[in-house]
């Protein structure tokens, strides 16, 4: 039994925008795997809800004419993992979201909800940051697109403006072409857990597979919001593939990350794991890209 004040069922994206404007205090609910838990805990007790759950128009993965990969915000984790476009172009995203919760949660949880929550530990977030994803929002003024790094304002807060709902996550062609990535979820158990640290690395190698053209790395739980490690990326760009490069790349991530001390994990421990994870994820990405180490 949930302490719910009202439930408004959106019939279309346009209708959702109208409802958002009419009920500015209301909470959007998609899969419900976060919102309902919070209501049960009393944190959102007495809330008004706008449900967008039945809006099939923003569900599913597709390829746009210019090669942009479009992931509808309501696409569930299990659909993302099994989607052929995802498997072909950004397989690591499917692997990352396959580590969310358990099977039931992955069937109801959506990538839109995962990102709109604004939490640093979201399993999709570090990979979306590492692949320069674009967030699409639809509001009274139409569609607005924004790099994901700007979408995250601070812990628990994202840039959704009055009347808006998130409608898609976009991965531009330039971002995924010839890129191979690996995600390491570091958690205290092998299922049903949130990340102590999430590390997502991807690389694009030269045609002869001997040089790193571009390496990108993003972390979850290394700061209040997911973040990229620019120093490490700059260090690796244009360098010959080697295990030594993996070590230097990994150590360089310490320049950019700032995990905190909490009862969940100590800062020095998180830093240590971040370096080791970056090293392993880099090596794995290079191997996936056809590089020899």
């Amino acid at each position, binding site marked *: *039994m*949930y*302490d719910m004040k009202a439930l408004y069922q959106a019939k279309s994206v346009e209708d959702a925008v109208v409802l958002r404007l009419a009920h500015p205090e209301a909470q959007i609910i998609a899969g419900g795997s976060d919102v309902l838990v919070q209501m049960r805990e*009393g944190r959102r*007790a*007495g809330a008004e809800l706008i449900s967008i759950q039945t809006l099939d128009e923003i569900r599913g993965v597709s390829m746009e004419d210019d090669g942009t990969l479009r992931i509808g915000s309501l696409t569930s984790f299990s659909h993302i993992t099994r989607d052929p476009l995802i498997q072909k172009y950004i397989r690591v995203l499917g692997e990352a979201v396959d580590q969310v919760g358990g099977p039931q949660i992955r069937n109801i949880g959506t990538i839109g909800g995962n990102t709109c929550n604004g939490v640093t530990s979201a399993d999709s977030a570090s990979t979306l940051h590492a692949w320069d994803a674009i967030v699409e929002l639809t509001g009274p003024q139409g569609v607005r697109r924004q790099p994901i790094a700007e979408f995250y304002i601070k812990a628990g807060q994202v840039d959704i403006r009055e009347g808006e709902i998130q409608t898609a996550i976009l991965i531009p062609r330039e971002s995924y072409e010839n890129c191979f990535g690996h995600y390491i979820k*570091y958690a*205290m*158990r*092998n*299922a*049903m*857990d*949130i990340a*102590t640290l999430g590390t997502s690395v991807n690389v694009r190698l030269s045609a002869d597979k001997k040089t790193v053209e571009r390496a990108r790395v993003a972390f979850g739980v290394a700061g209040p919001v997911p973040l990229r490690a620019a120093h490490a990326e700059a260090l690796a760009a244009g360098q010959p593939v080697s295990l030594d490069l993996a070590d230097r790349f990994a150590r360089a991530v310490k320049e950019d990350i700032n995990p905190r001390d909490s*009862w*969940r*994990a*100590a800062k*020095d*421990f998180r830093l*240590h*794991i971040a370096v*080791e*994870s970056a090293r392993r994820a880099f090596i794995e990405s290079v191997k996936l890209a056809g590089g020899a180490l």
Partner: protein
Amino acid sequence: MSKSVGRSVTRVDAREKATGRARYTDDLCGREALVVKICHSTIAHGFVKSIDTALAEAVPGVVKVLTCFEAPDVPFPTAGHPWSTDPSHQDVADRLLLNRHVRYYGDEVAAVIAEDEVAAAQGVRALKVEYEELPFVLDVQEAMADGAPQLHEEYKNNILGHSDVRRGDYEAARREPGLIKVEGWYDTPTVQHCHIENHGCFAYEEAGRMVVVSSTQIPHIVRRVVGQALGMPWGKVRIIKPYIGGGFGNKQDALYEPLCAWCSAQVGGRLVKLECSREETFASNRVRHAIRTHIISYVRPDGTLAARKFESFSNQGAYASHGHGVNAKGMNAFPQLYPCPNVECDSWTVYTNRPAAGAMRGYGIPQAMFAGESHIDDICRAVGMTPLEFRRKNLMPVGYVDGFSKNELYHDTFNQCMDKGIEAIDYLRKYEAYKNQTGPIRRGVGLAVFWYNTAVWPISLESSSCRMVLNQDGSLQFQTGETEIGQGCDTAYSQMVADAVGIPFEHVHVVSTQDTDVTPFGTGAYASRQTYIGGFSIMQTALALRERILNIAHEQTRMPVSNLDLVDGQIVRKSDGRVLKSLGDLATESLYSLEHSQHITAETTAQIKSNAYSFGCSFAEVEVDIPMCKVKLLRMVNVHDCGRLINPALAEAQVHGGMSMAIGYGLSEELKFDEKTGKPLNGNLLDYKLSTFMDHPTLEAAFVENPEPTSPYGTKALGEPPACSGAPAIRNAVLNATGVAIDCCPITPHVFYRKFCEAGLIEE
């Protein structure tokens, strides 16, 4: 006799449970029930100065608000122990329904009764509680120090209990020249049982009596406690225990049955229900005692033990519950498991401002085995012996008799169990192969044994009662006071009944529900006693029923009783084996006889004046990823000698469950508390890391079946033993892999990080 016992028959409740038809406490509660929600304290220690209930009472749907200022000042005990008529052996009565003096973060200060769950929760949130805060203490040894915050006036230095063991002369013996001293401190965590079904109950008055339906392991004990708490004659209380979704000892305590009954009484006996959330289960039910253990062993270079010292400090939390019995059990295992002529043992149980610790699967033995078996491997390193060699040399020998319990080790159980484990896991080869590894990823194998005993004689009452009622078709119903809590005793008992009476298994109907109005007296499910203890009354009652049946058979067949037998539901003439009539024909004739109608029943109480050792061991193989501070459990094997197996498939399942618990205990589970506030930090199933299937290897269970001579069925404890030795086996496997001796569980990545930094295996 044995046709059913020893076979893996399908559980009698399998279909009901698999199809969702089995009805648990909440399924039985009427829809008109009022809902009780508890207001828990948000400080760890202090006094409630006032509670403003006005806003809560104004919430639509709130029926009544009850606070600690209205609750009766009648302290009661909660432990699920048999009552003692000797006041000096009675459980400590330190609990009230609601508390003005709050002693832990989560203590009960008020209750809101409302028409539904939402209104009740809103009511609780609307209460304004004003506290006078007192200093609090969470650590067991700090709580014993002079000047520490005092929880219960009459227990100086917060010491609830202390007991000791003295053998020989420790001080003199340790001065023998040439001894090697091995010393260690070992810490075990506060963990919670995490049964699937949270505790819940509902209460109502009927004909001037209080009825409580509860998810409990101990209905007859709860009846007594509700009577004590409410000041009611025990006969005016009726407890009903339907199917329950696990207990593991948490429900071997009166939890919220007394409060729920009192709430009902306060609203004119209306039906009220009280269901714990998972968060309340963690913070405000019972937990396993965190125990800190200090062991010193003086060992001769040949690996024999000259003198040993043992001290254990048990964190009781805020209320006595099962109290010192848990720690004392662990301590008493110490001098028995590795007998040594000169021993000094002391154990203390100490109140702290944490949730009350009570019974939990293993009852002090998982703690004692983590410390003791870790220490044995530390000794092995110090004296240069293998863990196997040392154990073979020093473990309790065959023929050992414990003077107090009269328990005897009749068989070479330890060696037989270890041999089976060694073969299963290829221990000898792997132990050697893993000795001198280098590099980031290393493997190891570890072994730990455990000591356990069955039931509670001679410390407490052991008796069991059983009733059997024969039907017209030759089938029967039987009831015992021992309870099905998921472990499968309904099935094991049905097998025992079938064989002892002499009827087919299919003709046995177990009455699963205990109802204190109709079920024979029994103290319930705990101490791994069900199969052992229940076996006595089942055998005795079956013999009484057979006697009645054969006497009636004599009336009906003219044959003397001495020439009659009941075999597989048929009355047989022994001299020629001829079937004279079926039991069904006999029963029908008997019940409807116009001359001498008889309802055929039997009911007896068995007195049990024995107890039985139940021993075994665990083997673990691990792969440690040093830079990632992670361990992967590759193999785990438990070997048990629990006597003759009544149902091998159920026994195996019991072992799997215990191993799973041991894995969590060893690697991931710990309820943590905020040092600044005393608040539980991770009291939910996301942050409390109960292990999942993904964290388990294939669990392997093996058995050595030495029949237990004191049991009518040759059986003994298997409920708790599987949870006792897994954690130290994993710890010892990590030692074999890395050379790092961990001194606490759970061995989480945080612990690995600290230890690997200290050992220089990773750079800080």
